[in-house]
């Protein structure tokens, strides 16, 4: 455990001294927290919603509103659209950190002396993985809490704000978020083994954000309904996917492979 802790601290000391990484890691969460807050600022207390009836709400969403009236249900509908936006943070942030962490070790040739110590491959991978996942999860949670606090201030109906703490949001933020982070790290480890520039690794990894973007668009267009059942299925699929991806990441991250093929 001490070795993993030492690796995490070392990674943070290294990665966060890189201004580009620091910018990438902080800019996205700030934007993703700011966009819904600005939207709420202009819609949260708007009288325009008073005229909206339940019939105006996408029918598949209505059951999620419970006893809310038409205006509040519409507001909750808007608020919910941002769940998937928050899901992008735990995917992108660890990809940036892991790409710089792993490709950086390749380019500066620091892995060989590290591998010559009694640290195990699994300890290295867990350390590097956690060093990428922890900031991603914390920024996601932090962003969500700021969003919830902002919603509390900007939305007049406490019932709508209370819905932000429904199981749907809790599962999405506190379970799906970390699972998405793990996926991001595993993908980055695999991609980083094939490239020599962290920016290339980051760009290739970014392709894997597209499914989340697709879900966001699907939800906005009404094709997909993000409800508890959907989020639970998403968590289950991610759990299986994470296990498979982590297995392959471990396979790639072998001492021999790193020294003889990581060029």
């Amino acid at each position, binding site marked *: 455990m*001490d*070795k993993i*802790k*030492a690796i995490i601290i*070392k990674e943070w*000391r*290294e990665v966060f*001294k*890189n201004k580009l990484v620091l910018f990438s890691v902080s800019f996205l969460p700030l934007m993703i927290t700011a966009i819904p807050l600005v939207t709420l600022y202009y819609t949260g207390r708007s009288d325009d919603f008073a005229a909206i009836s339940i019939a105006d709400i996408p029918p598949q969403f209505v059951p999620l509103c419970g006893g809310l009236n038409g205006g509040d249900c519409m507001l909750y509908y808007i608020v919910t659209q941002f769940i998937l936006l928050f899901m992008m943070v735990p995917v992108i942030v660890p990809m940036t950190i892991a790409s710089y962490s792993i490709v950086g070790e390749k380019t*500066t*040739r*620091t*892995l*060989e*002396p*590290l*591998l*010559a*110590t*009694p*640290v*195990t491959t699994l300890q290295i991978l867990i350390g590097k993985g956690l060093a990428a996942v922890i900031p991603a999860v914390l920024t996601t949670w932090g962003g969500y809490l700021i969003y919830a606090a902002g919603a509390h201030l900007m939305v007049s109906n406490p019932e709508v704000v209370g819905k932000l703490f429904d199981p749907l949001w809790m599962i999405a933020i506190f379970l799906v978020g970390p699972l998405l982070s793990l996926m991001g790290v595993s993908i980055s480890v695999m991609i980083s083994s094939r490239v020599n520039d962290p920016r290339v690794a980051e760009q290739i990894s970014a392709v894997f954000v597209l499914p989340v973007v697709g879900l966001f668009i699907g939800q906005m267009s009404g094709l997909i309904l993000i409800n508890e059942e959907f989020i639970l299925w998403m968590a289950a699929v991610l759990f299986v996917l994470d296990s498979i991806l982590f297995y392959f990441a471990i396979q790639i991250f072998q*001492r*021999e492979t790193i*020294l*003889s093929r990581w060029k």
Partner: protein
Amino acid sequence: MIENNPVIVTENLTRSFGELTAVNQLSLSIQKGEVFGLLGPNGAGKTTTVRMLAALLAPTGGKATVAGFRVGEQDQEIRRKIGLLPEAPGLYDALSAEQNLAFFGAMHDMENVSSQIRRYLDLLGLWKRRFEPVGTFSKGMRQKLAIARALLHEPEVLFLDEPTSGLDPQASRLVREFIIELKEEGRTIIICTHNLEEADRLCDRVAVVSGHLLALDEPGELRRKIFGRKVVFHLTEAKLELVNILEKFKGVSEIEIVDNKILAAVENPETQNPILIRELVENGAEVQFVGELKRRLEDVYLELMGAVEGNDHG
């Protein structure tokens, strides 16, 4: 050097990468406290050999033990017993010298890491710059820090891959002097180098490799084996008749005149030189002084490599 106390033993150690055999049936026995040089051209398998012995690469054939542990089977134990200075120092530039060493101390589960960091940074003259990021260090300072990192956990065996490569003469000298200090402490050190003068100065024994083992001995012995022992007679005037006189002696051959010197291969200079000098003086030669022609390890190396190339082309 203590004999018959091997720290490293390899038997037909082989490593292939696909169809390429980087190390072919290498058999060595390196004694405790020995400074052992691995010499050879680029691609000769020196680094691959070190990587196998450092439990970084598994052999594809043969076997080896390091500090009593089997390579490929007890790798974690081996990694506790060895220190490695790779070809590139591989330091974390954003971290300070102290943070770099503390990190590697943690990787070795060290408890007394602070005192060890102080010890080696002091020894290598880096203590005052311990808080500075390594990225600001000169090449020599980086190399010294990488050596400190390799020594931090007091390993039984130290592998140094090109320890003075790319360093200026002053920094090279500092590193060499430090290696001599380590040698005096009785550490077992394996040096991979292209710098043959350095190997000559530092190593108790050297192995010349080119995929496989070409020669293995003490540098002086290798010189004798390959070039014999040449005696140089410095005279006031070297005449042809003096050469004719020396030719009559058994065990004296390859006699030649170079300026005012007579060079001769003498089988046993210790017993033959007094006789030869007397004979030369009795025949009118004025002997200024007599010495042995010192061949450099580089000559031995080039001779061996020339033979390999000759075989390859032949």
